[in-house]
C-alpha cells in the first residue's frame, strides 16, 4: 500500500513515515501543500494523511484540489486545534476521517486500515474468499482456519490483490504500490513472490487463487 504523508513539522513527519514504513506501507512524504499536490497528482496512492495547517497551500485547499482532479483515494486529516469547524471543513472538502494531534501511531494505523477497507468496499476487517482469510487489522492470513506464515512483502502483495478482488492488477501497479520509488522494476522479484504465495496458499494446487493474465498482470479470483 502506497501512502502520501503531507505534514510540515519534520519530526512528526519522520515519526509518521518511520512508523508507517515499519508497518509495511510504502510512504512518500511532503513538507508543504504544494509538494503534496505535486505528489498526489503524479503518483497513484492508496491513501493520504494530510495535516490541515500547511505552508504554501493549506490542507483544506490541498484536499479540494486533489478531489477536483478526480482522485478518490481516502484522505485522513490531522488537526492540531481539534475544533469542529476544522473537522467539518476538512471533511466537507473531501477528507474521509480525522485524527486530532497529538496522536498515537496505533490510532493512525487503525483509522487507515478502516479507510482502506472501506475504500475497497469491505465492511469488516476480515476479508474472506473461500478458505483464504486475511485480517487487515492484525495482518494475519489463514487458510482453512490455520495460520499461514508470510513474509512482509508476501503479505503486502496478497493484501493488495485481495483488496482488489476480481480485478486485473498490472505488475507496474503492484510495484508502485508495494515498493519505494527507486525499486528496480525490471527485476523478477514480483514473480518470485507470486510463486511463493501460490505455494503457501494452495499447497495442493487445487484453488488457484491468483491467476496470471498474460501480458496484463495478476487477478485474485473471488471464487477461489
Amino acid at each position, binding site marked *: 500500500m502506497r501512502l502520501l504523508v503531507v505534514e510540515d513539522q519534520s519530526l512528526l513527519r519522520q515519526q509518521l513515515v518511520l512508523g508507517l514504513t515499519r508497518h509495511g506501507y510504502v510512504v512518500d512524504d511532503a513538507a508543504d501543500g504544494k509538494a503534496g499536490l505535486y505528489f498526489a497528482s503524479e503518483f497513484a496512492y492508496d491513501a493520504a494523511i494530510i495535516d490541515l495547517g500547511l505552508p504554501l497551500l493549506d490542507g483544506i485547499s490541498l484536499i479540494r484540489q486533489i478531489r477536483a482532479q478526480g482522485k478518490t483515494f481516502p484522505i485522513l486529516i490531522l488537526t492540531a*486545534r*481539534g*475544533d*469542529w*469547524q476544522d*473537522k*467539518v471543513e476538512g*471533511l*466537507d472538502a473531501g477528507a*474521509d*476521517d*480525522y485524527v*486530532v494531534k*497529538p496522536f498515537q501511531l496505533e490510532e493512525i494505523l487503525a483509522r487507515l486500515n*478502516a479507510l482502506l477497507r*472501506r475504500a475497497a468496499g469491505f*465492511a469488516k476487517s476480515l476479508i474472506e474468499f473461500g478458505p483464504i482469510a486475511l485480517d487487515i487489522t492484525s495482518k494475519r492470513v489463514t487458510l482453512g482456519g490455520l495460520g499461514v506464515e508470510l513474509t512482509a512483502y508476501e503479505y503486502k502483495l496478497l493484501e493488495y490483490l485481495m483488496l482488489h478482488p476480481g480485478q486485473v492488477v498490472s505488475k507496474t501497479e503492484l510495484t508502485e504500490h508495494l515498493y519505494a520509488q527507486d525499486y528496480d522494476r525490471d527485476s523478477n522479484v514480483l514473480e518470485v513472490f507470486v510463486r511463493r504465495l501460490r505455494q503457501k496458499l494452495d499447497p495442493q494446487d487445487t484453488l488457484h487463487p491468483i491467476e496470471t493474465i498474460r501480458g496484463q498482470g495478476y487477478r485474485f479470483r473471488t471464487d477461489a
Partner: protein
Amino acid sequence: MSATTRTSDYSLQTRLLTAVSVLLTLFLGLTGVVLDRAFRSSVEAGVAQQLQVQLYVLLSAVEEDNGQFYFLEDLREPRFSQLNSGLYALVSSPAQQELLRSPSALERNFDDLFGRWAGLGRGETFFAREVAADGEEYFIAAYGVVWENGEDQYDFVVMESTGTSVAEINNFRASLWSWLGGVAVLLLVLQLLLLRWGLSPLRRLAEDLKRIESGASEQLTGAYPLELRPVTENLNLLIKTERKQQARYRETLGDLAHSLKTPLAVIAGVMNGLSEKTAAAPAAVNEEQIRTVEEQLERMNQIVGYQLQRAVKSTGSTALARRVDVLDVARRILKALQKVYAERQVEVVCDIEPGLVFLGDERDLMEVLGNVLDNAFKYGGHWLAISARVTQVPSRQLSIVVEDDGPGISATHQEFVLQRGARLDTLVQGQGIGLAVVTDIVGSYGGQIDVGTGQRGGARIQLVFQNFQTTDITASRS
C-alpha cells in the same frame, strides 16, 4: 509614510472650518459684488436724472438770434457759473461746432468729445459716460432740439465730471467690503466656537478612552449625545468582552498550570522509582510503570486539549452576535460525521425547524453540536435523532435534543456532566472532554444542558438557549 502623516493630520474641525470658510467667502463675495453693482447703477441713474433736469434749465436759459446763441440770464445752477465746477453746459451745431458753453467750462477742452452724441434725432436724449482727451471722465447728457421757425437742429449738452459719483461709489464700496469682512470674521469665529462646542463630546470620548487605556477607568461613563451613544455602547461592550476574554485566558492558564502539576508529579515519582530500580535490577522496569506514565501523558494531553478549547471559545455575548442557521450547521456536522462513521450505518433522524437562527458564534454552536452528535455516533447504536424547536413552556426558548439508542450515560456521569466548568483534574480517568466543553459553552450563553435517558434507552442530551430568533425562510432567502 505619507499616508500615516495624512491620517494623523486629518481633523474634522479643520475640514468643517475650511468648508465653511470657502462657503462664506463665496456667499459674502457674491453679495458684495451684487450690492456694489446695484449701488453703482443707482448712482448713475440719479446722475442721469439730474443732468436731464439741468438740460431743461439750460433750454430755458438760452436764446437764439440769427444763429447766435446766448444766455438770457444767469443760469439758476450756480455750478454752471463757477469755473471748473465739474458741471458744464454746451450747445453744438449740427456740424458739431461749438456754439455756446457755460462759464464753468471756459477752461475745459471737449474737442474729442464732440461727435459722441452725433446723429441725435429731434427730441431724442443721449446719456453716456465718456473720457475726454485730458483724461477727465464725464457723464454726458445731450438733447436734440430744433428751434422755433428754424430748420437746423442743435444739440444741448450737459456734462458732469464723474469725480463726485466715483468718490461716492468708492466710499460706499469701502464701507461695504469692510462690513462684509467684519461679518465674515465674526461668523468664522462663531463657527469655530460652535464646532469646538459641537465636537467636544468626541474629544471627551478620546480622553475617556485614554483613561481606560491607562487603567484609570473601566468603562466609558460620560453622558454622550444620542448620535455617539451606539458607538460608546458598542465600545463598552467590546471592552467588556475583551476583559472577559482576558480574564478567561488568565484563568485557563492558571487552571492549565495547576492541573498539569499532578500528572507531572506522578510521572516524576515513577521516574524516580525507575531510576532506583534500574540501578539495582535493570529488568525491574515493568509494564505497570510504563502504563502509569502513558496514562499520565494521556491525561496531560486531555487537560491541554480541554483548556485550549475553553480558551479559544467565544464569550457567548449575544450583543455582538452573528446569526447562525441551526439547520445548516447541524446538516454540515451530520454530513461530516456520517462520513466518519460510515461503517456504523447509523439511521439519523433530523427534525430541525427551518429558519431557526442561533445568535452567537458559529464556532461555538459547531463545537456544541459536534461534540454532542459525535458522542451519539460513537456511543450510540444504529439510530440517533436530533431535533430543534421553539418551546413556549416554561418560557419561549430554543430546545435542541439529541438522542441515541446506545447504553446511555450512568447516573454518576450525568452528575459530573452537569457540573459547569468542572476542572479536568477533578475528572474521572478516561472521561472524555467533549461534554465538559459543551457544558462550558452552553453556560457562557446562559443556556442549560440536561442529561437523561431517551425514549430508546440511550443518552438524551437537551440543550436550551434563549439567544435565538426565528426567521421567515421565504423572507430570508429572498
